Structures are given as structure tokens and as C-alpha cells.
């Protein structure tokens, strides 16, 4: 199941990168985000054809698209290419969040210990 998921993902990426127009689109988006119209400018193909290419890149997880009004804004998604970093960052976030919570527990224990200490002296 996992293996299938991984290879399906790789298939999408390989086939997305196999096409010269799609590689050119990625090069454009690597410089800066762009709308479908802006991407289409240098190509002798229809907006619809460019949109389809972008869809293939989206399916491979390499590009994201957001529709604002009538414009489709696209940007490159480095995620799949930096999977390792992202995964480790999630763990870093996990521990930093836990440390925030630990500090709360530690402060309470400190207060309790001080209370107990004073109690001890009075005895």
C-alpha cells in the first residue's frame, strides 16, 4: 500500500517532468509565481492547454494553483523535493510545542516544591 503510494507519486513526478512544455512552465514558476495568462505568453498554445499542463504539475505536487476571481495564480511547490526537510521540521515543531507545555508543568511543580519546602521548615 505504502509502496504503491510512493511509486504512484513518483510516476506522477516523472511523467510531469518528461514534457518540455511542463519543464518550461516550472522554470517560469521557479522565478516567480504567475497566472495562467502570464505562463501562457511565451507559448504558442492555448490557455486551456497551459491550464492542462499545470494540472499535471499540480497532480505531481510540484505546483499549486489558487483561483482568485477569474485569475488562476500558480506557484512552485518545493515540498516533494524537500520531503526530508519538511518531515524533520514537523518533528522539530513537535518537540518545541511539547517544551512549551512542559514548562507549564515544571512551573507548577516548582511552586508545589517550594510550598512543600516551607512546610518542611515549619515542622
Amino acid at each position, binding site marked *: 500500500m505504502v509502496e504503491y503510494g*510512493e*511509486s504512484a507519486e*513518483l510516476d506522477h*513526478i516523472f511523467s510531469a*517532468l518528461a514534457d518540455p512544455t511542463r519543464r518550461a512552465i*516550472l*522554470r517560469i514558476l*521557479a*522565478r516567480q509565481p504567475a497566472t495562467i495568462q502570464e505562463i501562457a505568453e511565451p507559448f504558442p498554445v492555448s490557455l486551456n492547454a497551459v491550464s492542462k499542463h499545470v494540472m499535471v504539475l499540480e497532480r505531481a505536487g510540484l505546483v499549486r494553483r489558487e483561483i482568485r476571481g477569474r485569475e488562476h495564480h500558480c506557484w512552485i511547490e518545493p515540498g*516533494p*523535493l*524537500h*520531503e*526530508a*526537510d519538511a*518531515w*524533520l*521540521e514537523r*518533528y*522539530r515543531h513537535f*518537540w*518545541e*510545542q*511539547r*517544551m*512549551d*507545555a*512542559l*514548562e*507549564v*508543568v*515544571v*512551573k507548577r*511543580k*516548582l511552586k508545589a*516544591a517550594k510550598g512543600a519546602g516551607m512546610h518542611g521548615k515549619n515542622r
Partner: protein
Amino acid sequence: MEKTADGKHRIVVRRRMPAPREIVYEAWIDPEGFREWMCPGDVISAEAQLDVRVGGSFRIVMRSKDKVHEHVGTYQVVDPPAKLVFTWSGLENSSEITLVTVEFLAHGKESELVITHEGFPQSDVAGRYEMGWGTIAKKFSEYLANDQRTAKKPA
């Protein structure tokens, strides 16, 4: 992100604590405290069992709205109040066993925690790298970088 000598990945998180290390250590090995701070944010309930001795194990179940995470591990070093080393794995991906080292450093009335989580891994990420993912990603970044350079040059 760092890499260990054998090429595996490691993260280090350091945190100052406003209490002596004995208290911080206590909060780490006390099941009630552990249960509380291990489950912040949207984690709504949890169970924790700790058997803090070398060879002893722990198990913690974290439940959020739509997910249940269970983590288990075995203590390898128990050196109160200075150091804990334990294995760490999520049952949903139990083939992945990582190692957590927690050092409790004394700084007068305060202390510092150094958490080193390492051994990431030969599964999720590294599996992709074994399949050539690393090479593809590297080549592709180089390709994009080269292209950005050529794009800036006048034709």
C-alpha cells in the same frame, strides 16, 4: 537539520527551563505530568504508562479530533536527574525506530534541556531517497538553479 556520521538525520532542540533540573526531570518521568505536557494543542486526551528503568518501556496514546497516535519506546539510559535515552517509534509505522536523548543541564536555579532526536530513518524519507528520489530532487534543483542563472544573462 543535521546529519549524523552514518548519514541519518538528527534534530536538536534546546530549551531553558525556569526550575532546577531535578524538577524538570521529575516532570518528565511522572506519568501524570508526562501525559499532560505530551498532549498539548488539539490533543484531547491521552494515556501514558512509564516504566522508567533501563530496559523498561513507555507507551503514550494521544488522541486528537480525528487521529490516534500511539508512541512506544524503551529506556536505554536512565541517569537521574541528568540524562534519559530512549527509543521512540510510532506504532502506525513501527518499522521506524528513532532514538531520543534528553540531557538535563544544571544552570544554578534554572536548567536547560537538550533534546536530540536522531536515526531518521530508513523508512519514509530515506526509502524515497533509496528509490533515487534524492538524485532526482538534487538534479532538478540544480536544473532550476542553472536555468535561473541563464535566464538572468542577456541572450
